[in-house]
């Protein structure tokens, strides 16, 4: 149905076709703003439009980007002969589908709020702004995963961040929310400025904003030496580290997650990290596939690995001392970002595409599972805290009896977050360790230390996840009443739990097959050494970028 409406509007040019999902999102934003002028402010209408927009974007992505363009890998939106601004490949298609699908689920989660709530669909104060901001941040995230141009990257990150700051404080009467929002802005502004500074250093050193061009130059004989490139790249990574809340740029995360409305928390915990990781992986694989190594690349790889190890350890240790479930899950999300970031340390593999792709595939597999786990865990937390008015861990006491169909999926999601078989979390962790092992044996033996760190962290994380389970099943608290939950919500979280069980058992291998397919043709990563850019083949030709040596 959606497609039939959209069909006449699909443009013919490949560049425009590639950009269509983003255009659809922009159209959705405009529609959310304009329609209330005719119908009057209604949260339900806005939500409906946003949901339609997300579904339309999914349809367009599948219809126009996934097959013809991304299948071969396409780089476009570039002035003649210049490096591309945007890329389309299976990897970016995955992230578009992932983000839009999750956006639709978040809107669904929002509709489950009880009518008495200030942010509920029935409440008069809720308007289109919330959904405009939500969709705009989705637009930014979608762009983040489809570019290798440093300038577009910054624009994308800011497009994703600025609306996020605002929706964190969307409950205008919540002091905690306002404080969280402010904290988020300050942190975001600081890291953004560091990132832009680093970008200027990189541009100064290489005379290009295009990462494959930079990588090709960096490994050539005329590479600029000294500390400038390393510092520049580290500073650029700071901006990304902020998005994925990597240590030491994670301090905003627990406060923001606690203060924000729970749909926003869920959205940020998965989407923002996914987009950041997508971008990080793109940069890393573009750098590492340049056909050689520059002296500063090894420190960058060690740096990413070290930060990843630190991130999951700090996240897990800090979570041990929390009593609010939202904060526990916030720290847990920091830890999981750390696990996933480990795959970005798979570096310096030269031309061995097979080894690079296992890291990408592992992160994609992890993200799929991570989405389900967080959707389930946050979904149950949302429904419990809406009814009980608190997300303190004691609100979960006796939930196994008070709301068995909330407690069961919660337990499944938490065990999956620990990474216990036979659940999806184990499959995700296993494929991650498998990827690290594969790369470690091929070229980077130090990656084994990350394998050990990830394994030990699993044991640390057990305690705080099981604390919630203990409240639900072992604590006997006969006084507390049953927790009524909306049927839609119960179905949502139980479906997530069931999917986790399937990914841990029958779809264990299928998960890897899917993710390997989406990681298979990374545009920009296959860029060859500068001299190879002679024959311009259609489509993929724009990918071999190193030809123009002159700085623009």
């Amino acid at each position, binding site marked *: 149905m959606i497609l039939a409406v959209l069909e006449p509007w699909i443009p013919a040019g490949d560049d425009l076709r590639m950009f269509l999902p983003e255009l659809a999102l922009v159209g959705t934003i405009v529609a959310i703003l304009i329609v209330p002028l005719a119908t009057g402010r209604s949260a339900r209408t806005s939500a409906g439009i946003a949901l339609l927009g997300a579904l339309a974007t999914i349809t367009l992505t599948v219809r126009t980007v996934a097959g013809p363009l991304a299948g071969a890998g396409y780089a476009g939106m570039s002035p003649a002969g210049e490096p591309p601004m945007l890329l389309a490949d299976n990897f970016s298609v995955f992230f578009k589908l992932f983000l839009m699908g999750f956006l639709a689920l978040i809107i669904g989660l929002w509709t489950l709020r009880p009518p008495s709530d200030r942010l509920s669909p029935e409440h008069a104060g809720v308007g289109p702004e919330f959904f405009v901001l939500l969709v705009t941040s989705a637009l930014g995230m979608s762009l983040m995963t489809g570019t290798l141009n440093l300038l577009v990257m910054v624009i994308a990150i800011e497009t994703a961040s600025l609306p996020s700051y605002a929706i964190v404080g969307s409950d205008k009467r919540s002091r905690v929310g306002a404080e969280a929002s402010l904290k988020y802005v300050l942190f975001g502004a600081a890291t953004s400025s560091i990132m832009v500074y680093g970008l200027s250093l990189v541009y100064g050193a290489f005379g290009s904003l295009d990462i494959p061009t930079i990588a090709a130059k960096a490994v050539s004989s005329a590479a600029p030496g000294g500390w400038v490139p390393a510092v520049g790249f580290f500073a650029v990574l700071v901006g990304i580290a902020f998005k994925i809340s990597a240590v030491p740029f994670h301090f905003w995360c627990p406060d923001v997650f606690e203060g924000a409305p729970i749909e926003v928390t869920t959205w940020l915990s998965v989407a923002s990290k996914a987009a950041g990781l997508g971008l990080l992986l793109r940069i890393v694989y573009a750098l590492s596939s340049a056909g050689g190594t520059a002296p500063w690349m090894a420190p960058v790889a060690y740096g990413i690995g070290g930060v990843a190890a630190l991130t999951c350890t700090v996240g897990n240790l800090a979570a041990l001392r929390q009593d609010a479930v939202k904060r526990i899950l916030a720290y847990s999300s920091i830890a999981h970002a750390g696990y996933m970031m480990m795959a970005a340390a798979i570096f310096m593999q030269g031309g061995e595409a097979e080894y690079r792709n296992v890291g990408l595939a592992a992160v994609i597999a992890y993200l799929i599972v991570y989405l389900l786990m967080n959707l389930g865990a946050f979904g149950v937390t949302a429904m419990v805290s809406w009814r009980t008015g608190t997300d303190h861990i004691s609100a979960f006491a006796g939930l196994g009896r008070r709301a068995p169909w909330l407690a069961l999926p919660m337990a499944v999601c938490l*065990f999956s977050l*620990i990474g*216990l*078989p*036979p659940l999806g979390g*184990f499959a995700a962790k*296993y494929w991650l*360790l*498998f990827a*690290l*092992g*594969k790369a*470690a*044996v091929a070229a980077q*033996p*130090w990656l*084994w*230390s990350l*394998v*050990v760190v990830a*394994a*030990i962290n*699993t*044991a640390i994380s*057990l*305690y705080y996840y*099981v604390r919630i389970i*203990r409240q639900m*099943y*072992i*604590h*006997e608290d006969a006084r507390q009443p049953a927790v009524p939950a909306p049927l839609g919500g119960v179905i949502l979280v139980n479906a997530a739990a069931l999917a986790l069980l399937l990914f841990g058992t029958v779809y*264990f*291998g299928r998960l*890897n*097959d899917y993710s*390997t397919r989406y990681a298979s043709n990374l545009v920009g990563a296959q860029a060859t050494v500068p001299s190879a850019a002679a024959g311009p083949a259609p489509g993929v030709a724009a990918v071999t970028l190193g030809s123009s040596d002159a700085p623009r």
Partner: protein
Amino acid sequence: MDAKLLINLLIFLPTVGAVACLIVPGARLVKTVAVATSGLVLLLSLMLFQNFAWWSGGDIFGPSYGEKLVGVTQIDWISLGSEPGAPAIQYFVGIDGLSFPLVILTTLVSFLACLASWNIEEWKNNRGIKGYFALFLLLETGMIGVFCALDFFLFYIFWEVMLLPMYFLIGVWGGPRKEYAAIKFFIYTLAGSVLMLVALVAFYFFAPAGHRTFDLVRMATDGAIQEAFASATFLGGLKFAHVMFVFLYIAFAVKVPVFPFHTWLPDAHVEAPTPISMILAGILLKMGAYGLFRISYPILPEAGQWAAYSLALLGVVNIIYGALCAMAQTDFKRLVAYSSISHMGYVLLGMAIMTPAGFQGAMFQVIAHGISSPMCFFLVGVIYDRAHHREINRFGGLWLTMPIYGSLATLGFFASLGLPGLCGFIGEFWVLIATFSAPFTWAKPMAIAAATGVVLTAGYILWMIQRVYLGKRREEYEHFPEATGREVFILTPFAVLALALGILPQHTLFNFMNGTLNQIVSLIQPGGPAATALSGAFGGG
């Protein structure tokens, strides 16, 4: 019935029973389903004897390790590469002389423990019965799966799958400090098993390309893999085999449990309900030893020799330390728990010796302890049900009020003590002899130190019997009813086996497993003193 079908039934029938427990209405029916399921599994497992019929004179062990496995199912499960012929994670199950006695032990103890759960309503716990029996049967699937899995990945899955039911069984249906005990058990075991996960991944990738596999048998017998493991280095110069041996050792030592990883055990045992204690002591502790036998020693033989001294020393520490701790306990169940630690020390010591006699003794001790310790825990449970306390010093004269129970109790504790003619004796004696005659320097002092453990064991058990069962009749226990038919029914198989294994060790146990054990020893010492005088002297294959 075909052994292949039989083994798959053994693994998955309890899961079917678990689902049935959740569906059927009524407490009595749930209990019946659970007991019937575990009983059926026991009967089916007994049919495996036809494949290990040593009395028929056939060769039941095959020429070398892994050549003759019973009831093998081997199907590709998860492909690890897109190209055809790529290695895959397999659903690979089967048994040999090492796992066969443990499978029988598992089904037996599970059935008896299930029967011991019959009075669950009287535990004053007010928690669901369906959940208990469903988790119990799920646990049985996990346990049988661990003993049958021959693919490392599958082994790991079953190993971890056991954790969740066990956590809830202790945590929900346990005693006053159940929450603490359950989480402690969970964290200790998981901390160990994540290191096994590292070994799981590393074993796969350190094998040379083209030989990569998760097949435990192949890893032990493939020369190229063995060579690669022996020469590789790990994380900056450490020997790969040594690091992996330590990782696996920690994973298994937590389960055994070996000092200093043992502290979860007394807590878990004291808080767990009686049937769960029986499972813990009878089967779960055995998994640590089984893991060492199945994975560590065959795959990393050189590292086993490297670690022999430390392991033997830890074994001796376990024996002495566990016995001394047991002596100091006033809680009856805690005493039995510490005695488990002490007895499992013999297992570790025997393994570390790495001779046929050492391995045989260790394995015999595993089975013997798997019979005597569930019996002891059940004996404690019987009087706890009546007295609702476990203070040793408050008991006395129970033999007079409960003569049948008293006699069975004395038999059980004597079996645990290692009285000649009962099962505990053979294992300990074998291990001590093997240690004494082992070809390394500190063997004799170690054997003597370990032998003092026997004296200490006799000390705390006799002292306990004196305080609990002997002495004057006490007023407050006068009304205690004699052991019921169900209780006697549960105790009888243990008592019979304790006697049988003690009197006819050769026929009841050694002949079923010695062949495989000797094959493992000859993997460890190719061309070495695999067939020492000892194995001849004691009739080991």
